[in-house]
């Protein structure tokens, strides 16, 4: 290994078994207060429904639990440890004040069914965040209910379907560019639509001529990510919107890449009819190892009757409340009102930024992506020279000649102290390296990243085998995913 790795180093790395392997009878980490009502006879109350045994549930002490999870945590990479340039995932800093305010007593312990008159604080948060997001997107109304981006897509397409049904027929299919995220086609299928692929042109954008020929009265909507998954802004967006609208179709925007637009341009102004946001991307709520997210859907006026129930309203007496009686609604998409805790965090982020901060965030995100692009251009192949917004996509074309693929470079990047970029996506770029630094990275951290990527490119030339065997510094080496899928072991068993 070369001596020039400036960021990563070896450190204490403890072994830790499964919690079940530490369990023994009599250990406990819980204590209940004394019962202040009469004792009960469980057999009498429950009869045959009484459970007698809790199987192999663990019995461990509090310090064991603290050590167990603390040790496990040290095996994770995280934004808090360094740059996490996963393209399309917007791994930005998660401000800690968000965590503090979301745990305030009245917000953390508010019951979803408590009377509206003692829920004004939560309703006020729903309303304020809604108003902010409506102006940021340039739309007319919003639902905060969807639990994640894909759930937002589902909610959005349900509204698309209800809209077309109200015009006479739901229509049959959804157009989806070949560069789209997999949730888009999966969602269309869940709403009962056929999926038709739309090819990208040589510049990585929607082929407008192809769209015009594929668009007809059977098409309910186009699901478009803008900027798209190449980090390229769809420059002919107005033509795209016109083509859709001329034949009565709707333009749905996947807002996964909204971090490139906030405060600079609004989807509602360039012809989008509805879109979802990912609060866990653009609005800094933590990814938490895979969730929770939050995927509000912002819409234009004509879709308002179809919003899921309930909707927050201002009542005649000036207080806030929920409205349930909405005959044209698509219905309810989840219990209660959405991932409220994420709304608190997203609003705290919005307040911490204000109009100036939100604009600068976008500018810095785009600036950073362009800085990375400039730093690595010529070393990694750039399949599309179209201007970059918030993320840049290279390919492994040069390194593949030595037998080193994007995933191998990604694994080697781990040794340099970085989380890999997104590999092998979008599908239109063979061997893609999709890099999104976000606004959170300083020029110093990005220089370390560029240096690491350059160094790996040299290693590929000099010692490809070493790169192919990476990572070399992690607790475990590459794991056998084929074996995991062939004979799935999905839980611990005592006989193991």
């Amino acid at each position, binding site marked *: 290994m070369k001596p020039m790795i400036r960021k990563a180093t070896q450190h204490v790395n403890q072994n830790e078994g499964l919690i079940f392997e530490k*369990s023994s009878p009599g250990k*406990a*980490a*819980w204590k209940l207060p004394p019962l202040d009502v009469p004792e009960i006879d469980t057999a009498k*109350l*429950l009869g045959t429904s009484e459970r007698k045994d*809790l*199987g*192999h549930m*663990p019995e461990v002490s509090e310090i064991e639990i603290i050590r167990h999870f603390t040790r*496990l945590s*040290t095996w*994770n*990479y995280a934004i*808090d*440890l360094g740059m996490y340039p996963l393209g399309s995932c917007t791994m930005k800093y998660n401000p800690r004040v968000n965590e503090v305010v979301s745990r305030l*007593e009245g917000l953390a312990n*508010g*019951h979803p*069914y408590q009377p509206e008159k*003692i*829920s004004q604080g*939560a309703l006020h948060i729903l309303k*304020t965040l809604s108003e902010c997001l409506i102006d940021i997107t340039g739309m007319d109304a919003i639902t905060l209910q969807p639990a994640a981006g894909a759930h937002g897509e589902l909610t959005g397409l349900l509204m698309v379907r209800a809209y077309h049904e109200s015009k006479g027929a739901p229509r049959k299919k959804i157009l989806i560019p070949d560069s789209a995220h*997999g*949730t888009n086609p*999966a969602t269309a299928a*869940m709403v*009962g639509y056929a999926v038709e692929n739309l090819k990208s042109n040589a510049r990585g954008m929607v082929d407008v001529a192809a769209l015009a020929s594929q668009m007809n009265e059977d098409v309910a909507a186009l699901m478009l990510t803008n900027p798209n998954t190449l980090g390229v802004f769809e420059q002919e*967006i*107005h033509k795209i919107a016109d083509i859709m609208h001329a034949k009565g179709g709707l333009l749905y925007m996947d807002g996964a890449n909204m971090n490139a637009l906030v405060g600079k*341009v609004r989807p509602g102004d360039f012809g989008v009819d509805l879109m979802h946001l990912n609060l866990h991307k653009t609005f800094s709520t933590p990814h*938490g*190892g*895979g*969730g*929770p997210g939050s995927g509000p859907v912002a819409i234009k006026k004509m879709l308002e009757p179809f919003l899921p129930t309930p909707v927050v309203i201002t009542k005649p007496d000036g207080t806030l409340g929920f409205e349930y009686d909405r005959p044209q609604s*698509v219905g*309810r998409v989840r*219990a*209660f*009102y*959405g991932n*409220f*805790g994420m709304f608190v965090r997203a609003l705290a982020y*919005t*307040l911490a930024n*204000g109009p100036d901060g939100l*604009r600068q965030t976008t500018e810095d995100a785009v*600036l950073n992506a*362009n800085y990375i692009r400039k*730093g690595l251009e010529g070393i990694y192949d750039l399949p599309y020279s179209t201007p970059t917004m918030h993320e840049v996509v290279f390919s492994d074309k040069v390194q593949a000649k030595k037998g080193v693929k994007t995933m191998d470079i990604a694994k080697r990047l*781990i040794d340099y102290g970085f989380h890999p970029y997104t590999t092998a996506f979008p599908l239109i770029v063979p061997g893609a390296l999709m890099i999104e630094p976000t606004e959170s990275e300083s020029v110093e951290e990005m220089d370390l990243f560029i240096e690491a990527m350059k160094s790996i490119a040299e290693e590929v030339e000099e010692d490809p085998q070493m790169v192919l065997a990476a990572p070399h510094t992690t607790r475990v*080496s590459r*794991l056998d995913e084929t*074996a*995991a*899928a062939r004979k799935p072991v*999905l*839980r611990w068993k005592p006989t193991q």
Partner: protein
Amino acid sequence: MLKAIGAGSIDDLFAPIPAEYRLNRDLKVPRQMAESEIVDWFRERSRENGEAYATFLGAGAYYHYRPVIIDSLISRGEFLTAYTPYQAEISQGTLQSIFEFQTMICELTGMEVANASMYDGSTAAAEAAMMACRVTGRNSVAVARSVHPEYREVLATYAHHQGMPLVTVPFTENARLDLKQLERSITADTACVLIQSPNFFGTIEDVAAVADIAHKRGALLVVSIAEAVSLGIVEPPRQADIIAMEAQSFGVPLGFGGPYCGVIATREQYVRQMPGRLVGQTTDRNGKRGFVLTLATREQHIRREKATSNICTNQALIALMANIFMTIYGKVGLRELAKQNLAKAAYTSQEFDKHAKVLFSGAPRFNEFVVQTGEDPYAINNRLLEHKIVGGLPLKKFYPELGNAALWCCTEMTTRAAIDTAVEAVAKNGRSARSIKEQPDVQEVVR
């Protein structure tokens, strides 16, 4: 940096956006605030939100004690600020904890496999019903009217465009599923029977009897569990084919309805039809044990429109809360915790029964029960609010046939003092409801 890039100004970088669409004004959002102002603003909202009220509300969201180490541990940046564990070598912490979560869910539910989480109990139930359709090749679902009304609404939304007809099965005078009606409701096209246990009224269903009827007709049994703490003392629905659970009770704050933690558990034979992420055990190149996301060919990023679900982001951090909670209480504590819930609810319902009518007493219950009063429950609740107590959930909106009825819930957090105050509020001014005849009639799910 601009110089390094070769750009004249920041605006040059936004040149690809057609000029006519660029925003030339400030966003209409509140001005930038200092951290101290942000904290103050939310403190104000917190004060307006029922701070320091005791509650008798349950109905799918339960107020249980959250041991403090849950937040200490989930606040570690390595858990909080990590992405989905696709890069296994640097995600072993998240992956192993999910593997432990899957194991404990299996132990508690009696199922063979559990996934890494779903959005919540309501979407888990809807996805479980869709999964049953894939497994059986049938299309329709028989759903108990005693399943959480909002879960049924979500199911109706999902089913509407799936060509999945729903038939609602009524409950009897003990709040359990009407088995005779169930027999009549199942057809050759019924993919599954969906029940909740303990059901929306807190009553424990006769799962074995329901399973027999469903299985005899080739349908699967899907059981929704909204109150996870019940698993500490109530026999799990082992006869089910799929369990769709809400794990909020396991250390997740009420948080005005979310984020919560759905889970689907099932039998091994159905695992390839399961939605959501799964973690599996494997080995690395040196033979060391490690964990990876597995069976991804079910998922949207591989299968696109042919995936088992469109779910991508799940509720990982909330599943970690539940995982830590289950680890803390474990084999003995979970039973003791559940027993306290049972005792508090038993005492409270007994006291209520002296002044009002506690419905559905013919079958065992866990920690919720329905009280019918002469007086409108909203009026009783208004009196209780003056004591900083939130009373039971009035059921008129969901079950108008039950008249002046409300769903009350007691947990280990419900104090004797609050119980006595609530009983007094019901007794005072409350006319006897014992003459009111209950006649639950059959109604379709209203969307």
